[in-house]
């Protein structure tokens, strides 16, 4: 074996002598695209994409039936809006060439330069465009998370404007700070594997601002705000859990041991959190619930997001156990403080994300990911301090940035639907639709159809066409 190796080395060493001189002057060959890595990232992108419809169902089942479509519509609309925003300029702002450590520029406007060749700064073995698409799915779901805070009462136009501006002025810069080359939090050494700060704290802190600025729903504490379709909510939670394998493991941007480690950590944290939420619930109010097991799983997934590629499986279990109980407690805060965070975005995402980011500072290990750092339990307290700084700054950006944005939109177009629209339900008042017309007789309660639309069209035709 040794002899063969020596021979090979000798031959390789002799190679430059055999090549033309110009070949020697060229740069090292470009990194090879790995079909395994590319497959993995593209499939992960698809998994993360599925999380947005999953979120639509998760949230949709928790609102009252008169608002089920309005809630689902918000998630699906964001699939449309943010995809375009990201491709045209959002990606460039987030990951493009750095300015002042705060933002990228528009060098990649319209995805120029984002093609088949890898961008080794971010992912050396997959096409740059694959990385961009993977990141797009994160950019979509983050504003979708915020919708839970203002469920059942936000104007559609205000929602569209808020989401687009939020994506541009809050998400894109924050993604740059944490993940962009030159970003100040990245330079500081902050660790966020898949978006504990970028996705969860940002959306959670923004959600708090939304809940406060938009105000409480009509009938707060008087009318029951009960989930109308928990089977749908649990289906959504299942899709979220499934998609999260793409969210976290995919963030390894390569198929291999790191992705595996992140996959394992993700699953274990979610499992542990589902158990601890239900356990806390059983102890605190008597019965374990399906909403609890689903919420617990989600809380665990939130918490493990920043840590997933840096901690081992047992640490992941601890992170999950704490997340479940902590977020169970966290969702009760809205009653204490009086903000109507309709679907508990603050209690799950802001609090879960904060715990996860700090837990990364506790449990990170270079043995798991050499490109990361060690946390407190591995003898490095400074990481925890760095994580704390990023947590605080993300809270500030999310909360204050959203507050200002909401106030501006309120002045311009108004944030809330009218009281009558709110009572009627968003499905009918904003979208002219009904979510459920189940039952054999329900079709009999309507009349008209295509003939109604056709006759209306005829009435609008100019007089001359009738002669």
């Amino acid at each position, binding site marked *: 074996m040794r002899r063969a190796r020596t021979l090979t080395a000798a031959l390789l060493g002799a190679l430059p002598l055999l090549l033309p001189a110009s070949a020697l002057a060229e740069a090292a060959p470009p990194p090879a695209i790995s079909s395994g890595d590319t497959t993995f990232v593209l499939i992960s992108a698809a998994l993360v994409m599925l999380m947005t419809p999953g979120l639509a169902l998760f949230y949709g089942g928790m609102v009252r039936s008169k608002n089920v479509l309005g809630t689902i519509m918000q998630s699906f609309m964001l699939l449309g809006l943010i995809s375009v925003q990201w491709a045209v300029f959002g990606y460039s702002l987030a990951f493009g060439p750095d300015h002042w450590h705060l933002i990228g520029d528009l060098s990649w406007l319209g995805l120029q330069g984002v093609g088949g060749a890898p961008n080794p700064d971010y992912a050396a073995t997959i096409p740059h465009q694959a990385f961009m698409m993977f990141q797009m799915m994160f950019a979509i779901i983050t504003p979708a998370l915020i919708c839970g805070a203002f469920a059942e009462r936000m104007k559609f136009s205000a929602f569209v404007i808020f989401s687009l501006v939020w994506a541009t002025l809050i998400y894109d810069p924050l993604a740059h700070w944490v993940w962009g080359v030159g970003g100040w939090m990245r330079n500081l050494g902050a660790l966020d594997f898949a978006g504990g700060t970028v996705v969860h704290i940002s959306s959670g802190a923004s959600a708090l601002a939304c809940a406060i600025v938009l105000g409480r729903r009509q009938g707060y504490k008087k009318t*029951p705000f*009960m989930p109308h379709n928990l089977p749908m909510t649990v289906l959504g939670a299942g899709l979220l859990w499934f998609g999260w394998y793409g969210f976290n493991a995919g963030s390894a941007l390569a198929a291999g041991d790191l992705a595996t480690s992140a996959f394992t950590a993700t699953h274990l944290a979610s499992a542990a959190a589902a158990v601890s939420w239900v356990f806390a619930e059983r102890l605190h109010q008597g019965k374990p*619930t399906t*909403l*609890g097991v689903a*919420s617990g799983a989600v809380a665990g997934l939130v918490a493990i997001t920043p840590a997933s590629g840096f901690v081992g499986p047992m640490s992941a279990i601890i992170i999950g156990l704490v997340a479940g109980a902590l977020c169970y407690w966290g*969702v*009760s805060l809205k009653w204490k403080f009086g903000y109507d965070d309709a679907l508990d975005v603050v209690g799950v995402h802001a609090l879960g994300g904060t715990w996860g980011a700090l837990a990364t500072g506790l449990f990170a290990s270079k043995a798991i990911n050499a490109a990361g750092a060690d946390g407190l339990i591995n003898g490095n307290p400074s990481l925890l301090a760095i994580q704390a700084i990023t947590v605080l700054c993300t809270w500030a950006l999310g909360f204050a940035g959203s507050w200002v944005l909401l106030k501006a939109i309120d002045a311009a177009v108004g944030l809330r639907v009218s009281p009558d629209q709110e009572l009627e339900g968003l499905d009918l008042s904003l979208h002219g639709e009904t979510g459920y017309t189940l039952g054999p007789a329900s079709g009999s309660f309507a009349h008209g159809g295509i003939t109604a639309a056709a006759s209306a069209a005829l009435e609008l035709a100019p007089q001359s066409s009738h002669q």
Partner: protein
Amino acid sequence: MKKIEAIIKPFKLDQVKDALSELGIAGMTVSEVRGFGRQKGHKEVYRGAEYAIDFVPKVKIEVVVDDNLARQAVELITQAARTGQIGDGKIFVTPVEEALRVRTGERGEAAL
């Protein structure tokens, strides 16, 4: 003709239907309703928010019978629907002014 409206516990519907058919009463209308009398509702908890559900699911049976069958019908429904627990329900009897079979146009007791 008398109309008998019986509000009963949902799981008793089959028993009541069978009891009425023994009397020769072959048709009835049933609706799913909610109501309460002395029976308390129940509590549901979602993420720590507790809701009191006062209205209990019940089934309402409406059946129109000949005057001479009314008393027996009420007796049979009562026996079939009773469990002895709070929430067994109530029966109301009201006079019916007219009845008509849609298919044939028959009126009065012939329509029943």
